[in-house]
């Protein structure tokens, strides 16, 4: 422990190599940045490919997203590397920035690929979402009606907008944050509050928590 009470972590050799390169100057620094960018570009391409199907982004856009994500991940790492404490491998820490940048970039491209209306409400799919077994649809109709009424009447406009987009229409949170001029964290808080309200509404209507289908508390 340091005098300030911080935990001292022994840096592994490979992480130390990365840090030495990033802290160096001249050609050594440039070589390290080039190696980091090449590595992160490979990671970004893989991640973009992994997510492409669910976001329906394809073709040259995928390579654009990977390039942008790796460029911005390198920038973020350069600005934050002083804060890296060696509490994981450097590469694990660095890949984290790629994931975040890929999420952000794919969120931006989501709206180009499909112009989903934020107020679209997939009510028709709601029973399938909650009750995948068709034979249970009828017996769970009461719960479905309660939930739908709670969404319509108890959520604020923003809560309803966020809940319907994320939970029913599968809009990525980063895409929604961009559309709303907000952040992922803020959108999540709205979503969390909406879920709490809906659960409370179901509970006050007689359904236990966690909700047990077919048996009121």
């Amino acid at each position, binding site marked *: 422990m340091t005098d300030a009470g911080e935990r001292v972590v022994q840096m*592994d050799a*490979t992480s130390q*190599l*990365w840090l030495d*390169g990033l802290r160096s100057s001249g050609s050594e620094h440039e*070589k*390290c940045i*080039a*190696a*980091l960018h*090449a*590595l992160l570009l*490979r*990671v970004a391409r*893989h*991640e973009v490919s*992994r*997510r492409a199907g669910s976001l329906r982004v394809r073709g040259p856009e995928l390579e654009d997203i990977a390039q942008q994500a790796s460029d911005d991940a390198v920038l973020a790492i350069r600005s934050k590397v002083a804060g890296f404490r060696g*509490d*994981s*491998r450097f*590469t*694990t*820490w660095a*890949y*984290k920035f*790629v*994931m*975040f940048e*890929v*999420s952000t970039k794919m969120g931006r491209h989501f709206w180009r690929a499909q112009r989903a209306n934020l107020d679209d409400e997939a009510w028709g799919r709601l029973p399938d*979402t*909650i*009750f*995948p077994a068709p034979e249970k649809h009828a017996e769970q109709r009461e719960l479905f009606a309660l939930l739908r009424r709670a969404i319509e009447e108890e959520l604020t406009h923003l809560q309803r907008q966020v809940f319907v987009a*994320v*939970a029913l229409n599968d809009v*990525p*949170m*980063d895409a929604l944050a961009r559309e709303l001029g907000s*952040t*992922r*964290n803020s959108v*999540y*808080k709205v*979503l*969390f509050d909406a*879920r*709490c309200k*809906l*659960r409370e509404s179901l509970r006050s209507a007689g359904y*236990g928590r*966690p*909700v*047990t*289908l077919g*048996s009121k508390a």
Partner: protein
Amino acid sequence: MNTDPDLEALLPTGSVDAGCAVSFEVLHRYVEQELAGGHPARSQPGLAAHLHSCPACGEDYQGLLGAVELFGDASPTAH
């Protein structure tokens, strides 16, 4: 209690949810602990709850887990 997993998926609300900003700060440690065979959900229940409840952070977590497994710990001199 026989809970319905799909309604749980629609309305997850963990009482110890860490939130997106905190999760981003410690996600790399969580992933390494998991890949080392540890049980990060026990030591970091707030992060575990968040990764279950937040689709965006959950996606980043899955991606990071896969990236570390696939690309490993590359050295700057290996390029």
